[in-house]
């Protein structure tokens, strides 16, 4: 057991992760528009700044300067509380994600992770499922039937898909035997042994998890809570100004977090192929110290993790501009009659394979 790093270091990491989540979410809005444009043979926003890179700033200024509107009969306090809760929960969940291994500076070890707890995965799940309250409260407080319908849809959809998601996760936990995201990551690559990422051991589980992740983040093809053809704008119909901005923003933060979780659970987190060989090569043939070689590998691993995350974020957007949205009954049928039985089957299969000693 490595002793926990100092509290000061933890708060720095938390702050950096917080800033990074916001920055990535900001540029997700830009990436979404550019990717959408490219998939449709257009070029997307390119007026503000070089390649339109200042577009998120322009959007933010627009959002902040728009009129704050409160619908008549709305519960004002809850109306404000809704987007706040959505944003808070979205930002909280990234605290436990290991963004990198250990840095070693003069025999002081620093985790590149906000909080290392042995219930990391549970924390992510708990906080993410709180996020639906933001949507529900906002939709209910709007005093608008479309908002309410959107909120109800969001709630039932999240609950339905959380079941399958949790069960897909259980199969991972059966292999790893721990809820700590750091330990799950480390298990996917151990020095001196041939270890593979969990995606190889859990292909079915990954697909279930991926589909549920789309539903959990309210992304197309499961974006029925904000289905504009049926519900005007869904739960944020009555929202304007930055309160709407917070809802849209929290969606992107959620995508970032869920991409990070998927990278950690199934794609080896901060591990990358041949990292130990690379470290040993630096030590043996370049004459580096073990600590500095390890630090370099840690940094490369962090970069690798972010590449995995960005790949997932791109995939989310790619799917959005490819697939049409499901009908609500199709969504429910997929969740309850296909994904949950599949997830149970996956658990049984994993158990059988563990008993047989294959994985």
């Amino acid at each position, binding site marked *: 057991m490595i002793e926990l790093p100092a509290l000061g270091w933890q708060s720095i990491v938390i702050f950096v992760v917080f800033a990074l989540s916001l920055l990535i979410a900001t540029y997700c809005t830009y990436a979404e528009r550019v990717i959408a444009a490219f998939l*449709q*043979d*257009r070029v997307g926003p390119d007026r503000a700044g070089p390649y339109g890179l200042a577009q998120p700033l322009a959007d933010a200024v627009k959002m902040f300067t728009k009129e704050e509107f409160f619908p008549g009969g709305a519960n004002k306090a809850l109306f404000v509380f809704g987007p706040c809760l959505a944003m808070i929960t979205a930002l909280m969940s990234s605290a436990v994600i290991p963004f990198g291994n250990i840095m070693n500076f003069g025999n002081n070890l620093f985790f590149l992770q906000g909080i290392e707890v042995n219930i990391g995965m549970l924390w992510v799940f708990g906080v993410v499922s709180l996020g639906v309250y933001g949507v529900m409260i906002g939709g209910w407080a709007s005093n608008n039937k479309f908002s309410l319908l959107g909120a109800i849809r969001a709630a039932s959809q999240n609950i339905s898909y959380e079941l399958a998601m949790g069960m897909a996760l259980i199969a991972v936990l059966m292999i790893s035997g721990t809820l700590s995201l750091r330990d799950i990551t480390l298990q996917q690559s151990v020095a001196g042994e041939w270890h593979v990422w969990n995606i190889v051991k859990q292909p079915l589980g990954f697909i279930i998890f991926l589909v549920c992740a789309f539903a959990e983040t309210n992304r197309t093809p499961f974006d029925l809570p904000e289905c504009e053809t049926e519900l005007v704008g869904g739960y944020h119909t009555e929202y304007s100004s930055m309160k709407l901005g917070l809802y849209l923003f929290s969606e992107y933060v959620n995508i970032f977090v869920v991409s990070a979780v998927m990278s950690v659970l199934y794609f080896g987190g901060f591990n990358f192929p041949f990292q130990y060989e690379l470290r040993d090569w630096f030590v043996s043939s370049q004459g580096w110290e073990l600590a500095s070689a390890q630090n370099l590998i840690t940094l490369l691993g962090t970069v690798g993790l972010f590449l995995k995350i960005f790949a997932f974020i791109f995939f989310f957007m790619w799917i959005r501009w490819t697939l049409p949205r499901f009908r609500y009954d199709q969504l429910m049928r997929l969740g309850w009659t296909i994904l949950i039985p599949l997830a149970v089957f996956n658990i049984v299969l994993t158990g059988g394979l563990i008993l047989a000693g294959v994985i």
Partner: protein
Amino acid sequence: MQLTNRAKKLEKKPMTLAERAYLPAIFQGLSITMRHFFMKKATVRYPEEVRPFSNTFRGLHVLKRDEQGRERCTACGLCAVACPAEAITMVAGERKKGEEGLYREEKYAISYEINMLRCIFCGLCEEACPKAAVYLQPDKMAPPRYERDEFIYGKDRLVEPVSPDERSVRGIQLTADQATTLRARIG
């Protein structure tokens, strides 16, 4: 009831497992969108990139001068008569002594206005003109304006400048390169 012999009988076959699983169809769709990701984009980034005009393009009008720099227009009104959109109005006046260098004939247009919001750029005025005075330029468009009255082009904006270098000052501003290539292409 069969109405034509071209009717095709369609059978609704039960879906295969691959179709029901939906995933192959998703991958197919993803590959299609990914192909579009790398395709050539249809967008023309307008102010920086000008889409080439056809050399028969009928754009903003110009009132030409003759070789000695005199206005060709004699305010005969044939263009206004020919105009299907009734966009052209003019007031005729008599040339005074000493104005021979300004106007080619004894009669000239004191004012000549084209309403670019009415104009349909059909080019009938150009065809009607007996003095070869009004032309629709192939390289200029009426640019957007904030006010409606700014679209009523008077002689100040229609008559060709005396010095040829001052052309392209009005209307859409082309860069020097673009103007040269366009002129070369038009001939």
